[in-house]
């Protein structure tokens, strides 16, 4: 789809992010997770993926924002193939983990932001347990950490003016879920892996 390629290459041109030549985890679906500091984050990771992998990846996006108008709904569903997940009023019916699991189960990759919310101070916050719940359901799917740098400087929280800072998306070594590992330790390890401080288990 031409529109997709156009949006991806425009995003790379504006943010200075380079496209990955081949997926870091090899073949098959993956759970990409990244730190969250800007509205641009999911578009940037999506645009940095190799074309074939991008076609098979669904980023998680806030349902309240992306389903507000027909245009937003169309863009999120048809351009980004996003998984719309609720941020508030979570019930058994709209559980975000179920929605992500459904996409992963169909053989696609997902992109999530385990901090849950955008940080404005440039620090990567503690991870919420969503990443653990998802990894537990798909223990064999590799987890690919993506460290985003400088995106909050391009368009920080509370500003609509962009500044042309050069951003970077570092795809780090994938990590594996380990069933015997306690949740807290897993989340700490996953967070550390964002900075390339972990070995493949």
């Amino acid at each position, binding site marked *: 789809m031409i529109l997709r390629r156009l949006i991806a290459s425009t995003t790379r041109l504006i943010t*200075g992010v380079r496209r990955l030549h081949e997926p870091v985890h090899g073949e098959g679906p993956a759970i990409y997770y990244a730190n969250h500091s800007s509205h641009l984050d999911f578009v940037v990771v999506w645009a940095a993926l190799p074309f074939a992998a991008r076609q098979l990846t669904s980023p998680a996006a806030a349902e309240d924002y992306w389903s507000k108008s027909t245009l937003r709904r169309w863009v999120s569903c048809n351009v980004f193939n996003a998984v719309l997940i609720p941020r508030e009023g979570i019930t058994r019916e709209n559980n975000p983990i179920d929605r992500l699991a459904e996409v992963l189960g169909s053989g696609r990759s997902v992109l999530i932001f385990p901090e849950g919310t955008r940080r*404005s101070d440039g620090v990567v916050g503690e991870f919420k347990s969503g990443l653990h719940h998802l990894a537990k359901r798909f223990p064999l799917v590799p987890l690919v950490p993506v460290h985003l740098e*400088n995106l909050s*400087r391009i368009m*920080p929280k509370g*500003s609509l*003016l*962009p*500044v*042309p*800072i*050069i951003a970077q998306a570092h795809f780090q070594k994938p990590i594996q879920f380990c069933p015997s590992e306690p949740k807290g330790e897993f989340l700490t390890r996953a967070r550390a892996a964002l900075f390339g401080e972990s070995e493949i288990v």
Partner: protein
Amino acid sequence: MDREFILLLGSVVGILVVSSIIGAVLASRGGDEKKLKTIQNLNARIRSWWVMAAVFSAGIWLGHAFTTVMFAAVSFLAMREFITLTKTERADHEVLFWAFFVITPLHYLLVGVRWYGLFTIFIPVYAFAFIPFRRVLAGETKGFLASTARIQWALLVCVYAVSHVPMILALPLKNYEGQNPKLLFFFVLTAQLSDVLQYVWGKTCGKHPVAPHVSPHKTWEGTVGGIATTVLISTCLWWATPFSPWQAALMALLICLAGFFGGLVLSAVKRDLGAKDWGSSIAGHGGFMDRIDSLCFAAPLFFHLCGFYFGTGMDPRPPDWILHWLGK
């Protein structure tokens, strides 16, 4: 286009052909891993040089407007690298937006319409005041002086200094009407040749570092050899300039020395910011700033010395249509 310009272009193509052949021969000879890496980098540099020389020559050939737009783009991309490496705060965000999207385009507009009077003071007077004015509105006092100074430096080095290169085209010189593109070419060729030859001399027989803490690869042998060779070559191009041969030699020496110190100063800034290269946009070279660092400080010096010794005086007034529009 006049014959001398074609001749200048021809000499650049000649230099590039010779270096491409040397690069290919070196690559086919092989060697140990470290040597191969150097040769790979050398060939990447030469390939980038072909592209840069082509874009630059085409821009000059197409005239004043194209040259101005080309250098505006270089300034924008250089400042982008400068600001990316600089640790800017949230409170700088709006000031930066102004610097990139209002001050830089306006300044180059002044280059484009050749309003010399405002061109010389727009950044040192108006932008200099505007930046702290806007920054103080953000209400953050922590790091205020450092923040404003960084942005002012970025504008002065990346935009104000660099814009003196296209402004050479508007410089009225005695007995040299309509030939300014050749002078611009002479300036850029000398500055870049000096960089290249210092690199070549340094790689082949460099031993004693000039400033080991600032730039470990700059050696006495490289600097002296590179500058001497450049002055020699540039002096041989005196016929393309308004200078006599010995004047051309002095001007070339000035460009080389200002370029050397400019490179050293920006290298110190880069290290202060904790980086090795300014960016990775130009294969083999690093970023735009790595390529133009020697130009930044040399350009205003060269411009004003040319104007002072060989000029007939810049007209500081705006063009007539602007005066008319302002109702004067």
